[in-house]
């Protein structure tokens, strides 16, 4: 699917499977105003003619192609911009300059309910008018009548930070519809994330009160966050009193207000009442102030006039933070770096690791430097040592040692320590890498370009597999070619073959394998040549012409396609017929008829040959090798019966061939596909009659032949294409991850990845949220606990989780890690905690030679119901958690708690021994404090009765 060009260029090495992007960008669940954040497809709403007309009326505005869809303008002499970055999520927003004669409007167009609330975020300096472009409707909603009106909200904006505003709109005596409008009367104002929400009696009262307080210094209107200071404490006290008063006076409150008001009180609770709250978002601060007045009023109390508010802004710590970097400690010897020559190894592969030691003491230091490998839960293998390792004062010395990574699959730590002549350990440091020829088992996809706080270094990101999205000269049927620089099919990237080869070669030296992108359609110059050679492989429309791709569309351009592939300097010296000297503007696609076995064989064999010629370690198929419905070259339906079963059978056949051929020479050749459960079985697939995923074995798609065939091999990964976690309900995320875990990972034994997710925070600055540290760590906790891999461009807040996944992949992603049914986990495990934790469905076990490991993930429930990268406070450490397990006939031989590092800690995983208390068949461990997630591994040795396992 078409991705946004800037993103593609920016993340050229990132996972960019875009099959469902259009689906996601055309609808934002829960948002009523279309394209409320201005970031979706541009150039689809206004025509060039319309913009030309606007400019005639004095508009200074972007070209039609640069207008975000569903936004337009009315009137004259308006200056408007839609910057692509800097919005609330560092994304697009609207910047509107003063005009008394025109405005910008969005699209809503729904029947007006008794009341609606217009919400938006604004910053800047000026006077903003916001409201509804109102249309009066006839009673039957079929006609628009004259006279529709809705008075606007007019507010003074004076803030550099994004602040939320709401406006209550009450329905007049007639039926109404309309669209949001914005006009800046004075100054320049930015606005973003516009919505028109249904209201209710309680919200009516709340927003009406809020509207009364705007511009009176009674609310937080100049900051996005405030410190939880004395003022806040005092206001919180007032709020609590108001809640209490409301509770006492509930009998005076009408029923239609009571329930929603309670809900608002409850929903505000985490944002103002969380224990240890240090930062309050302005939104919630304001809600608290407003609710205080509303609740008091409802309780029959006098609220008086607005009280001025003095807030304290939140200051950053000022401490820079460098992910993956360890500074020398003052007056000490420090091992600042332990860097192995690869990020991923095959089993039993030779390796070398270099430790960097820095002496910042005043004297030369001599001691023992030694290295060990820690695998599994803590098995140690000495690797190397140097007895008299001398480092002069102020000197930086490197020590390189060679060894074999050993037979164990999955992650390990390489630990280097320095011990002085007296046997005192002066320092130790660990780094981590993965070992797996079946590389999707340890797949870490977190590529990033350099930023202010980090270099472009995959070791920082734990990045161990790269993917080239639509980088080939065609989406299908690619073959070796001699062009130095070429334009890719579908995306139109200009690729330098020599550069990419060097890049791949370098990556290979790091253990980073590369995969390439294919899709079931020929495209680009090379693809159409393949189509020319094999028209029998194509899918056709009823008119006998090659089928216009259901998703991709696009007609071939004969002269472009007949032009040479080479577009680099070499082209100038080539003998090209002038009329064929054209560069391609690709977006042509012609589907393959995957019902034909010979076509499928052709595709797979080309992929195999192409992968071999470039040295790719695997391939990604956008979608899967299922059959699209259409006609064959003779005009017959390609699946004559059209029956579900026949599609399933063919789909399964294709995947059997796929695995058999691609993995014949190398069973570990990686194959991954865009086959998320949502995409494969969701409304999108059904609505569009997409047949390729039939046979996934889920509700409404009962046969599983297809997925079984696709996953019946080593090194298979399925992608759940997911663009953004922001705003997603944590519980839904957990449910969906568990659904995919149970179906794909547990039932079919494949690796499962979610992404490619945008980090949605400012890369360059940690900001108040430290790159969304709390929210991202909650998300990472969920992914770890549900056996998910993450594909996302890197932000430092990923790193603890990525590092943890790298080190403990054995306990997360190994094929033998089996989920324990929640009921059984509930029977055998008890978790005693001061707060509710997610754990019951997050218990796993694996068999060992002598017994079993029980793996229990304890996941803190995030303070907010939805993923909120703006949430700044980290949860306090959770202490005093005890886990008891009933394990008759088993002996607990080890109990370890493992967690990722916290922001303030050294950037190392934290593994701690837990001393168990045994009482009969029950063992109890005290869990060391943790902030987001901890993984307990209880190692049992069988010694008798195992009936209750």
């Amino acid at each position, binding site marked *: 699917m078409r991705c946004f060009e800037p993103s593609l260029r920016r993340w050229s090495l990132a996972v960019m499977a875009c099959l469902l992007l*259009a689906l996601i960008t055309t609808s934002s669940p829960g948002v009523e105003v279309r394209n409320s954040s201005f970031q979706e497809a541009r150039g689809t709403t206004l025509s060039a003619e319309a913009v030309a007309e606007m400019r005639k009326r004095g508009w200074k505005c972007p070209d039609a192609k640069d207008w975000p869809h569903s936004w337009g303008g009315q009137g004259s002499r308006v200056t408007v911009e839609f910057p692509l970055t800097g919005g609330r999520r560092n994304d697009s927003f609207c910047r509107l300059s003063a005009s008394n004669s025109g405005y910008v409007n969005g699209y809503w167009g729904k029947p007006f309910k008794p009341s609606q609330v217009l919400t938006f975020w604004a910053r800047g300096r000026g006077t903003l008018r916001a409201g509804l472009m109102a249309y009066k409707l006839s009673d039957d909603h079929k006609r628009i009548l004259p006279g529709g009106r809705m008075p606007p909200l007019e507010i003074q904006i004076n803030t550099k930070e994004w602040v939320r505003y709401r406006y209550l709109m009450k329905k007049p005596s007639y039926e109404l519809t309309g669209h949001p409008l914005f006009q800046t009367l004075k100054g320049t104002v930015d606005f973003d994330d516009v919505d028109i929400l249904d209201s209710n009696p309680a919200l009516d009262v709340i927003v009406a009160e809020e509207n009364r307080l705007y511009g009176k210094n009674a609310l937080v209107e100049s900051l996005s966050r405030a410190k939880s200071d004395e003022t806040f404490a005092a206001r919180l006290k007032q709020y609590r009193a108001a809640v209490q008063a409301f509770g006492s006076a509930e009998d005076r409150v009408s029923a239609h207000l009571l329930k929603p008001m309670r809900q608002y009180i409850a929903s505000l609770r985490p944002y103002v009442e969380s224990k240890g709250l240090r930062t309050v978002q302005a939104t919630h601060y304001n809600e608290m102030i407003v609710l205080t007045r509303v609740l008091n009023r409802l309780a029959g109390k006098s609220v008086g006039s607005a009280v001025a508010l003095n807030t304290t802004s939140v200051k950053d710590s000022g401490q820079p933070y460098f992910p993956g970097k360890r500074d020398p400690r003052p007056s000490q010897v420090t091992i600042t770096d332990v860097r192995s020559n690869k990020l991923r190894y095959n089993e039993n592969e030779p390796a070398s690791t270099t430790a960097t030691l820095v002496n910042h003491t005043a004297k030369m230091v001599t001691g023992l430097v030694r290295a060990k490998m820690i695998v599994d839960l803590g098995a140690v293998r000495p690797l190397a040592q140097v007895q008299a390792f001398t480092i002069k004062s102020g000197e930086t010395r490197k020590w390189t040692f060679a060894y074999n990574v050993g037979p164990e699959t999955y992650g390990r730590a390489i630990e280097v320590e320095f011990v002085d002549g007296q046997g005192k350990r002066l320092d130790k440091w660990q780094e981590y890498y993965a070992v797996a020829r079946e590389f999707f088992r340890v797949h870490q996809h977190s590529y990033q370009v350099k930023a202010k706080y980090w270099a472009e270094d995959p070791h920082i990101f734990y990045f161990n597999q790269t993917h080239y999205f639509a980088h080939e000269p065609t989406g299908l049927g690619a073959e070796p070619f001699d062009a130095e620089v070429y334009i890719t099919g579908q995306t139109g990237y200009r690729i330098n073959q020599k550069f990419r080869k060097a890049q791949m070669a370098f990556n290979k030296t790091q253990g980073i394998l590369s995969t390439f992108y294919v899709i079931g359609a020929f495209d680009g110059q090379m693809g159409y040549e393949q189509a020319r050679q094999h028209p029998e492989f194509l899918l056709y429309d*009823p008119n006998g012409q090659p089928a216009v791709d259901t998703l991709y569309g696009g007609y071939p351009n004969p002269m472009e396609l007949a032009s040479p592939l080479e577009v680099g300097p070499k082209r100038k010296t080539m003998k090209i017929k002038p009329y064929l000297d054209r560069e391609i503007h690709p977006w042509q696609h012609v589907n393959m008829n995957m019902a034909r076995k010979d076509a499928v064989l052709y595709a797979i064999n080309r992929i195999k040959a192409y992968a071999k010629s470039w040295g790719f370690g695997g391939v990604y198929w956008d979608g899967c090798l299922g059959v699209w419905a259409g006609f064959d070259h003779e005009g017959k339906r390609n699946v004559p019966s059209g029956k579900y079963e026949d599609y399933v059978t063919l789909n399964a056949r294709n995947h059997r061939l796929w695995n058999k051929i691609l993995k014949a020479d190398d069973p570990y050749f990686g194959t991954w596909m865009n086959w998320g459960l949502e995409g494969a079985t969701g409304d999108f697939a059904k609505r569009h009659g997409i047949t390729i995923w039939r046979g996934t074995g889920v509700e409404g798609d009962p046969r599983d032949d297809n997925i079984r065939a696709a996953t019946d091999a080593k090194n298979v990964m399925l992608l759940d294409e997911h663009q953004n976690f922001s705003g997603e309900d944590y519980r839904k995320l957990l449910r969906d991850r568990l659904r995919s875990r149970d179906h794909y990972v547990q039932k079919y034994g494949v690796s499962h990845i979610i992404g490619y997710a945008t980090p949605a925070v400012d890369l360059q600055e940690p900001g108040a949220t430290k790159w969304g540290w709390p929210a991202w760590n909650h998300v990472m906790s969920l992914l770890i606990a549900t056996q998910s891999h993450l594909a996302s461009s890197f932000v430092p807040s990923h790193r603890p989780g990525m590092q943890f996944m790298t080190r403990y992949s054995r306990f997360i992603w190994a094929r033998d890690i089996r989920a324990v049914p929640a009921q059984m986990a509930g029977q055998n495990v008890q978790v005693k905690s001061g707060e509710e934790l997610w754990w019951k469905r997050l218990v796993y076990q694996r068999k060992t030679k002598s017994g079993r490991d029980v793996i229990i993930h304890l996941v803190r429930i995030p303070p907010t119901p939805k993923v909120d990268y703006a949430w700044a406070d980290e949860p306090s450490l959770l202490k005093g958690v005890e886990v008891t397990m009933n394990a008759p006939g088993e002996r607990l031989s080890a109990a370890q708690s493992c967690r990722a590092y916290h922001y303030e800690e050294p950037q190392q995983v934290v593994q701690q021994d837990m001393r168990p208390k045994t009482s009969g068949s029950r063992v109890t461990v005290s869990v060391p404090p943790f902030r987001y997630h901890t993984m307990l591994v209880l190692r049992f040795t069988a010694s008798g009765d195992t009936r209750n396992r």
Partner: protein
Amino acid sequence: MRTNLKTILLAGCAACLTLSTATGDELTDLVVKKVDSKQPTRILLKNRFLELTFDPARGGRCSRLLIRATGDQVIGDDDVSGMFLDHWAKYAWPSGLMHLPYKYELVKDGKRRAGVRLWVQVPKFGGGKGSRGRAGSLKIATSPDLVGLTVRKTIWLNSDNDTVEVDQELVNTTKQSRAAALYIQQNLAMSGSHYSDNWYLPSTSGVRVNLQPDKKGGRTIGPDWIRTPVAGWMAVKDRKTRHGMVFAFDYNYLSKTYTSGATGEWFLEPVPIGPGKAFRTKYVVKPVSGFKDFVYGSRSLVADIQADEVGQGRVKITHDVMAVGRDQNDVTVELQVIGWKSKKLLAAKTFQVSRLSSKRLQQELVFKPPVLADGVLISAIVRSGKREERYERFYAGDRAELQARTNLFATQGGGLPSGRGDRYFRPQPRKRKQFDKPDFTKLPQRDSKRFRCLVVFGLFTHILNLDDAVDGWKHRDGKTPVEFTWANCPPNGVETFPGTYGELFEYDVVVLSDVNYRALGDVAMEMVCDYVEQGGSLLVVGGPYAFGNGEFQGSRFLDVLPVRLRGPFDLKWAGKGKSWKLASNQPEHPLLKGVRFDQSPRVFWHHFVTPKPNATVVLNAGPEPTLILGRYGKGRVATLTLSPTGLAGKGEVAWWDWDGWFPLVRNLFGWLKKDRQ
């Protein structure tokens, strides 16, 4: 339609003579007269229904139009207001035509029809691209391709109905072939302004409605441009008064429609017009009242279909219809409801109407759809005598209607091409053109010293290497090298094609290589057919978009070809590892002179066609004819049904790599050029 200029001028003179007596006379209910002796001259045209005032000095526009029954003055006082305004389709509004002084004459057609004819011969300044201000506009040099053309319109009223009839003409009063197109603008002010007006624009997704706000500062809802219209009409209605106008024009030459909210505009496709020839079209303007909306308009009918959920899952359909122009007797109205997804007939009812007049009639049908959300297609078929008119409306419930009506932006389903699969979509019907063509005999003669070849370059044409084949080869004993012009031709639209017959006729040979009908479009296809008929030479080569796969059904091109097509999927494959041998039953045929078959050229894909009786088969691929020669009119046509697709097996030589291919191309070119010597 093929009347030449002389005939037109003679007819014009006759009309003038007739009108010299009619001017100033008031026939029963029908008046056409010059009403103001002072400058600027104005013309009054009125009947008992309408009163039109024309301002010849201002682009021959109608500056006042009074509907007597309602008292509505539908044209505003703005400087750009007016009806029957002419503009050039190649420019954005305005063209200079609307400022030019038009000549005029009063015309009469019997006792019941009178009108005013207005025309201008496009001057060297102020007749092309224009500006809003007259003075500035007149200073703008006219594009040379427009200078000398004559734009003419005749606006007629009948004594017995309220329909305005317009004959619109573009006359080539130059000595060269020209290709040009007008667009017609109606700048109205229903009920005094454009506020609260609805404009109705037929499109592939149904009749789209542009809703004007109720007052200044409000926002327009709905589209302005319809780039793929499906019918030749548009309409406007004031929501307050329900008074409106329907404009019905010829869909076959329609390019796109537009409303600014105050204007109704339709853009015509450019057509080639020979010297002394004219392109003519007609349209009507019908004032209407009482319609809720419009679903159809034509020169004989205006209609609306409303659907309404009336409870208990039932839907009530009301069909409003009235005659445009003359009354119609013994009319049958049939209403049908078909499930959009199920395609099943859900309800039907037939009504007999003894007289269909300018009085709006209504029919009703109530039915209960199984799943209304899936949508239903409500069709009306109106039969009167031998004439039958059909129109339809998609309906999926009241809520969906509101959504559609208040949809400010055309983004619904726009993200994915496949999105249209779920929603109502009506393909554009094929346009059938019959435009006034140049006098082919007077077109400039081709330069006999040149050999010009136009290659319409479809997919895989490069494999043919036509230019390489004739490189160094010179026709007529080495005196005439082939000069190629390449027209890139994606299957959804050729990039360049000669704009005029004159240009096209300069080519000695035209090659259509893997070219489908849609890519060339109606006008170019018609030109190609005329080109051959008039003695041009055509080579048609196969490919995935050619012959039976080329969407030529029902087109004149089928007559041009020396073969009968067998419909889609006529491109056949020899099979895996198989091929057909290219051979000839006429080895002595002149086209095979010097062409050797020693290499046994192989064919993998070619179109199976049936030669017409008088065609000559020169080559076969296996048993099937593949190089077939024929004639159409004075021209020669060669069809090479081979498709340059497929892959040669080991030891095989593909026909395009065959050493006989280049000699064959040369011979073909020689044959095609032969008549030109």
